[in-house]
């Protein structure tokens, strides 16, 4: 009985390994559960869809910048392929914290960069740049949108005052889904 059981278990394991090799990975590159880069990139794209850059001429491309997280930058470049937001084409740029950020319309800053980026972010506050980060307290302190994880789901907090200071129009659909924070 035990021997038969062992045999069946071996068969089971062999079958699983065979299946693993034979079956293509359907969800490959869809969800990077590592840093959830793909999910963050998808959220960034959604944020762009629900934001109005009033100072930006119609038809000009939207520049989406990523600072300090190559995985998110790669995922975003993949996500915006063949996508348009209100007649605008989308460009993705990976930037350093000392880069030329004024050209960005949307800026994602990783937690690792945020510590030293305070003065820089302060200088960006009145520019029409939608700033997003996954750093805790970002929406309250210096930015507009903060991504966070709660109960196993990605959520976001929005600081509407910071958004209007930057001259950005944030849609009510976005605000309804967000946790609203003030300065």
């Amino acid at each position, binding site marked *: *009985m*035990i021997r*038969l*059981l062992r045999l*069946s*278990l071996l*068969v*089971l*394991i062999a*079958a*699983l390994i065979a*299946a*693993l090799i*034979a*079956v*293509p*990975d*359907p*969800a*490959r*590159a*869809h*969800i990077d*559960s*590592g840093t*959830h880069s793909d*999910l963050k*990139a*998808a*959220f960034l*794209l*959604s944020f762009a*869809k*629900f934001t109005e850059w009033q100072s930006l001429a119609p038809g000009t491309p939207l520049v989406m910048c990523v600072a300090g997280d190559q995985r998110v930058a790669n995922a975003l470049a993949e*996500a*915006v392929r063949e*996508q348009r937001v209100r007649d605008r084409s989308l460009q993705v740029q990976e930037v350093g914290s000392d880069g030329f950020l004024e050209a960005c319309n949307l800026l994602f800053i990783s*937690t*690792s960069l945020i*510590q*030293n980026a305070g003065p820089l972010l302060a200088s960006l506050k009145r520019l029409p740049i939608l700033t997003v980060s996954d750093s805790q*307290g970002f929406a*309250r302190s210096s930015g507009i949108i903060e991504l966070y*994880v*709660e*109960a*196993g*789901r*990605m*959520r976001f*907090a929005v600081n509407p005052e910071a958004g209007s200071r930057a001259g950005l129009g944030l849609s009510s*659909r*976005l*605000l*309804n*889904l967000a*946790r*609203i924070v*003030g*300065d």
Partner: protein
Amino acid sequence: MGFGSHSLYRVVALGVVVTVAAPAWAAGQSRRHLPDLSIEELMGVSIEQVFGASERVQPVTEAPASVTIITADDISRHGYRTLADILRGVRGFYVSDDRNYSYVGVRGFGLPGDYNSRVLLLVNGHKVNDNIYDQAYIGAELGMDVATFDRVEIIRGPASSLYGTSAFLAVVNIITRSGGSMEGISLQAEAGTLGTQLGRGLFGRTFANGLDVALSGTYERSGGVERLYFEELDTPATNSGIADGLDGEELGTVYGRFRLHDFTLTTTIGRRLKDIPTASYSTLFNSQSPRARTTDSRTMVHGQYERVAGRTRFAADVSFDRLRYEGVYPYAGAEPGSPPLVLDDMSVGARWGVAGRATRALPGGQTLTAGGEFMANVTQKQWWTYSDPMVPGRSIDKSSRQSGIYVQDEIRVRRWLLLNAGLRFDRYDRFARTTPRGAVIVVPSSNQSFKYLYGRAFRAPNAYELYYFGNPFTTLQPESIGTHELVWEQYVGEWLRTSVSGYRYAASRLIIADFSYGDDPIFINSGEALAKGLEVEAEVRSRRGAQVLFGFATQRSEDAEPWSTPLGRWPSSDSALPDLSKDLSAGSKCSTWGHGTHLQEPASRPPPSPTRRSARGSRPQSSWSPPPAICSTRLTPIPHPANTPSTEFGRTVRLGIRWTLRGARVMPSGGNPPLRSADDSHEN
């Protein structure tokens, strides 16, 4: 259970079909890409990440352990009411309940007399096993409301290299909710069968200055089963074996969490009263005045300061934990007609702790974590008195200290290859221990991983084992375990998750109770045990939230020493999943214990046997002057969770109303506090 080899093969075959065919079928399905999803759908994408496996947030696929995450959504959907309910549905966990406390066994290990001391329970990363029994409270006695849980991380395998003692078989980490997640005020009232009534208030808010506050209070009362029948005690003298209205329970909890910038303060206070209908430990059956009853009061205060500076994340913790237990046990008086002799058994454990750790990313794809902790067990007091002043009680007042330092490194050798190694050194008053852990993790794609895990762990003898019976031996040493495990996990999109896990656990010098020295047991290092097993699990979730869980587990456990019984046989998982788990234990020999039920399949779930029950470690008989009445009725005095089949309450129904006042914004679904429901419930 009636599983013949044919049905076994059917189960194995079904396992193969589900775990292999489902991903293959999935491959043929066209899937929508994440960028095509609406923002509402993106907010529904589940994220599998874990903190407790490495003391930092990391994806489940890269954690050096086999991990299961239960979220607030899951708790709400299944109507879980206690942590025990949650664990009951988890692969490899076996929960039983003796109508007083709940006990958990992991992967075939469930020692008789073990108060969950081999499972480490954390709340936000802080240890809450008490310092008398090392007990992980998992039932209502935990003193926390599941409505305050954000998620629960279940991390299988030893983790002493990170946490020290008790992280022997598994670590369970409860992450509690923040104020922002329960924005507003919510009042709830429920009533249900078994005379259950519940009132709950929740408040959460993030203020303009950044202060985040979460508060909750819960009061719950249940009459339990009105008339419990015990076949063994069906005599006219013992009320025909019926315990009348003795299954009641009362629970009050308070939870508060305050966060300001980098500082978080979490506090939980809970008090649980439970009547014991089972005449545990040979108490008077169906005694109405006084009733056999336990009261457990717990307090936890945990402050944490966390800061990121450059590439380093620092955390510093200060904590205080207190447990007060009181058990009232009525015994027959010395003569017929005389008032009962009442034992009052008590303990108080209090502990201060400080801890600190730092995590830093280093060149070469390394993530280094180092930390240390110090605990002062300022009070470890156990005492008991009798209602008759002629019968002496006893008081044992102790205190102790423990400290540990640890280091752990994760090296990302390649994009797809991770190496993980950890080492911890623990110092106690009477001994020191060093425990290692290692892992090789292959992540061929972002949604699947293979893991080889090696770990060692120890469990230090607790104050109860060391002192309660006046152990004449001072040589009691920690028990230890060595484990090897192979894990394969795969996530197919959002809706299918499969995992296969094979393991070998070898425990040695297990602390067991030995009765060969007299009537009272003496705890000695003696037991050895070996468990091998294979677990297969597939979970399918539909977009609308329906969920099917298929689980299959086979396991073989044996004791190396014929006369001890380190391995009890646990009832198979009584879980929310269709219970196809089958335990193939070769069995252990347990002549000393004299409980043949160790080896029985708990197929027909016999009614609880009062004489085998035990409450807490109440030992009325003491070697110096035992009251005669007690001696004459004494039975096996050791609490014996291993052969207590889980008691079932059948189908219960609850109705509840909820009044919620929120801020101006609507929370996405899932952020709502779960309205608990038993099998069937309606929200009015």
